[in-house]
């Protein structure tokens, strides 16, 4: 009780004028509002908007540097020529559930459909309802710039047979409703594991390393271990601290999130309902701890070497 009360005071203190607004009182009968909530939780804006170059929302062109080359995210505004304006709802559902384009081509898994496939039909339909009423932007997609071994799109089919399991999230009846909600949000919508779980040389998620962090994150970032390991993960964080972090970006040490995670929070997670952020925190901290350090080895760099 005391704990719940404290958390309330703390969140009430932190929320203020935060634009958590629209999404928070989404009525289940309004698919566009529900879709906006899914859109925030799923972080569509972050990858599909080239914010660094003042790109228009969802018009694509955001460069995602990976060990396989650089992917340029596509335009998903409703523009009929350069966006997805000619798509049907079925096309949209198939893209997110199966990683297939309307023409039947495989999408590279830089588009996190292995996570989005876990979204419920209801949430996927709502997301489509929201996406299709966004402003159309005419902006031609830029071709991916991939390394030779990643260029054949047909190989993605083999990749899928190894690493991709389609199907909506199945709740675990042994766990609480909050835990299941957190699992759904983290695994299906927020797709935490797409960045926080290390991948094999073939780009598949490594077994037993769920959320254990990687030095080969997108855009050359080092992605932290977020398992509850006390030494190399976030095992010293309390659930309330993690929930706060997902809203404000401030860690229990007073550091501020930067880089990609700041983007994920600013454009997505801070708009979620506080009980949803708490559910994500509960779920993440319930996972098996994995001892895995992603700290870079000290590399003595002298300026002279670069001149």
């Amino acid at each position, binding site marked *: 009780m005391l704990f719940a009360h404290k958390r309330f005071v*703390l969140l009430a203190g932190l929320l203020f004028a935060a634009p958590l607004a629209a999404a928070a009182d989404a009525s289940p009968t309004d698919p566009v509002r529900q879709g906006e909530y899914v859109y925030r939780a799923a972080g569509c804006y972050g990858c599909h908007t080239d914010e660094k170059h003042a790109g228009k929302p969802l018009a694509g062109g955001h460069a995602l540097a990976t060990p396989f080359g650089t992917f340029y995210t596509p335009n998903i505004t409703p523009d009929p020529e350069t966006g997805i304006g000619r798509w049907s709802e079925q096309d949209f559902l198939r893209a997110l559930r199966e990683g297939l384009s309307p023409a039947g081509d495989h999408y590279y898994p830089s588009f996190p459909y292995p996570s989005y496939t876990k979204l419920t039909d209801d949430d996927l339909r709502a997301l489509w309802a929201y996406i299709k009423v966004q402003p159309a932007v005419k902006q031609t997609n830029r071709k991916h710039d991939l390394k030779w071994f990643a260029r054949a799109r047909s190989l993605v089919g083999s990749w899928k047979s190894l690493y991709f399991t389609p199907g909506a999230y199945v709740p675990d009846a042994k766990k609480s409703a909050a835990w299941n909600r957190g699992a759904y949000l983290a695994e299906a919508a927020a797709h935490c594991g797409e960045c926080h779980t290390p991948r094999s040389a073939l780009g598949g998620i490594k077994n037993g390393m769920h959320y254990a962090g990687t030095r080969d994150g997108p855009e050359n970032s080092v992605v932290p271990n977020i398992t509850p390991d006390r030494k190399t993960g976030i095992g010293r964080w309390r659930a309330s601290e993690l929930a706060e972090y997902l809203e404000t970006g*401030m860690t229990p040490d007073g550091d501020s999130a930067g880089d990609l995670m*700041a983007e994920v929070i600013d454009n997505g997670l801070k708009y979620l309902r506080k009980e949803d952020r708490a559910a994500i925190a509960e779920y993440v901290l319930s996972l098996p701890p994995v001892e895995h350090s992603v700290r870079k080895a000290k590399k003595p*760099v002298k300026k002279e070497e670069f001149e």
Partner: protein
Amino acid sequence: MKHPRICQRILLASVCLVAGAAFAAEPEDIIKYRQNVMKANGAHMAAAGAIINGKVDFKGQLGDHAKALQVINKDINSLFPKDSDFGETKALDAVWKHSADFQKRARDSAQKADALARTVAAGDSKNYGARFKELSDSCKACHKDFRKEEQ
């Protein structure tokens, strides 16, 4: 009695002058210094946040943390001199390449820290949370564009 002390001072001053003229810090030392100042910054943020959010009851100390934040954030840009961009730093090249933008962000943090310190000094407790959040958002906004997550 007076005379030797003056001598001492003159001696000290000349030593300082000579040292000053020859002084050129190692980039690695500047980076380490910057990281330590930033750690102190974060520590005061966490401490102030815990008080403001009612987790702990050290209300009497809030003013000290707010003042520390005000002082530390006065000129963050000065912690990033030229040539401190190589080595063990998470600072992105953008700090120096887009120096005007970076300075704008640093000024924003200075203003936000100033506002928090004034609000706390005035005892305007209902606005502590709002000022604190503005400062925290300012930190995040700068980290988003100018710091690489590397470890």
